[in-house]
């Protein structure tokens, strides 16, 4: 058999070798949703306020890479804030989605309001950043690279924008933004080789104010509301 004949056969195999029937997409999803989301241990989401949160022991570089569009979010926020300020303010348009502890509903409306959507993305990215904060553990080399610190600075700027936006009209959100500003300001000042004590201060600031549980609860509420 020549190489050409073999190549031709193998090319044909792309369309003929073990071609599956159309899979039952919806039926398969039912089990996936049940096991991936209803088994709370597998998803790091929706903590009730005041519940202790254990941060992962290592930082995920991937999480930090998701921060790349932070500048875009800030830009969106500016647009959203602008819209919020020039538009006639209605309770429905600017009020915070209801904070719920329950698992988010499956059916959610598509994102529409740019401010709420940008706030939702900001919340998710802040959760990711704080979850990837280096921890002080014995024998572990602590590092905070420039990208990580730059992401914290970008989110700090976004936090300050949000504090001046209609998103902060809700007292709970305003308090959360203020606490996040404090934490992110500390993170943004981390050196590339932070001392354990610096990280301890940040962790204490977060724990004292239940920052991460509150942040996750609010983020889940936004998500459940379709943002």
């Amino acid at each position, binding site marked *: *058999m*020549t190489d050409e*004949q*073999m190549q031709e*056969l*193998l090319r*044909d*195999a*792309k369309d*003929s*070798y*073990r*071609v*599956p*029937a*159309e*899979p*039952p*997409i919806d*039926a*398969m*999803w039912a*089990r*996936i*949703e049940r*096991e*991936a*989301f209803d088994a709370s241990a*597998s*998803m*790091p*989401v*929706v903590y009730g306020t005041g519940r202790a949160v254990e941060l*992962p022991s290592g930082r*995920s*570089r*991937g*999480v930090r*890479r*998701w921060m*790349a*569009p932070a500048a875009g979010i800030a830009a969106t926020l500016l647009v959203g804030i602008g819209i919020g300020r020039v538009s006639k303010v209605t309770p429905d348009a600017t009020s915070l989605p209801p904070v719920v502890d329950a*698992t*988010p*509903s*499956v*059916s*959610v409306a598509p994102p529409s309001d740019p401010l709420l959507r940008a706030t*939702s*993305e900001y*919340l*998710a*990215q802040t*959760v*990711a950043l704080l*979850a990837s904060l280096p921890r002080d553990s014995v024998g572990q080399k602590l590092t905070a690279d420039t990208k990580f610190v730059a992401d914290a600075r970008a989110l700090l700027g976004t936090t300050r924008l949000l504090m001046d936006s209609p998103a902060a009209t809700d007292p709970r959100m305003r308090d959360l933004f203020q606490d996040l500003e404090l934490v992110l300001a500390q993170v943004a000042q981390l050196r590339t080789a932070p001392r354990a004590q610096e990280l301890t201060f940040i962790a204490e600031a977060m724990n004292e104010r239940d920052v991460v549980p509150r942040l996750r609860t609010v*983020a*889940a509420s936004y*998500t459940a509301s*379709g943002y």
Partner: protein
Amino acid sequence: MTTPAIALHAPDAGPPEWTLITQIVAGDRSAARTLYDRHARRVHRLVFRICGDEELACDLVQDVFIRAFGQLASFRGDSAFTTWLHRIAVTTALNQMRKVKRIRSHEEALGDEDIHAAPSREADPDLKARLHAAIDALPEGLRMTVVLHDVEGYTHSEIGEMLGIAEGTSKARLFEARGRLRVALADFAS
């Protein structure tokens, strides 16, 4: 690289994958469903081509996505999301196939038919069917390389990542596999 690789591999219109992933990590089921809809058929085809059983393939797809959503927070973005997901699919399918093989080995010891044996020429004279049977009869490492490279179209680099082998090993396996296929089909090509 400044742009996450995952952003370059969205198979269709809609939110970028990094957005979906962030939302899923925050607990958004609708984002999970969107991501699932984008990739489920591709994953199904991949695992079906590995296992060759419709029912098992559907089970595997579910296992793959349950594992993927559970591990999503640890996704580093070092590779394309598709590559990451398909690596989970290949690993899950291979592990399941090894379990199945152990069971079948036990059955063969009891006298059952060997389903991996290449059919005889008389029983299956069609060249395509013979090729498929010859692929099925390859050792697992060689068969996976042929399926992933020649059938599914992955690069050697991607195959190396999925199977945990060097790129050169993937090339060597493909060369070996094609040699064996050529021998198996030699008398049909003249």
